[in-house]
């Protein structure tokens, strides 16, 4: 799973049936110090997160299918948690990365 920030929403009317009923977010991956790291991607929401939240994103299809309780589902990235705090020793030292 990766840490990310919800940057915004994607509005989509015509989509694959597996995506119906899920909010689609633009996610910016973050490192442990909450600094943007890598390219943006999309993820469906399952935890009522909102734009601006730091979230936990699962990017693996089998886990997604378990959560959505479908044997066949073409969703691969899912927001599975809203992060309150990250305590990590970053490369810059031992300061808490709040």
């Amino acid at each position, binding site marked *: 799973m990766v840490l990310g920030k919800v940057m*915004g929403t994607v509005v989509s009317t015509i*989509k694959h049936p597996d*995506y119906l009923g899920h909010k689609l977010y633009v996610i910016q991956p973050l490192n442990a110090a909450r600094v943007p790291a890598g390219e*943006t991607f999309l993820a469906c929401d399952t935890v009522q997160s909102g734009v601006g939240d730091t979230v936990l994103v699962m990017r693996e299809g089998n886990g997604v299918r378990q959560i959505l309780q479908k044997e066949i589902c*073409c969703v*691969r990235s899912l927001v599975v948690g809203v992060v309150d705090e990250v305590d990590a020793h970053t490369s810059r030292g031992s300061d808490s990365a709040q």
Partner: protein
Amino acid sequence: MILGEVLGALVANTRYQGLEGRIFLIVQPQEADGKAIGDAVVAVDTVQAGPGDRVYMVLSREAALALEPWFVPVDHAIVGFVDSVDLEEGG
């Protein structure tokens, strides 16, 4: 899943079983702000997209699961049209 823009179509008359009738499109992966990410890829279409459309794709194993039959050699599938991307102010 990632955003992308459809650049064109690809014709392949000989294809693996299960992929008959599927449309292959050339798609340029993009960031949310429209900046290109890497090189264009070939994706199977599931929503009848066409050149110039902004779409999103699912990658890897789940791309094949967007199709029926699903046990097919596919690693990028277009699964939706993008009407708009609403980014947070300053985001």
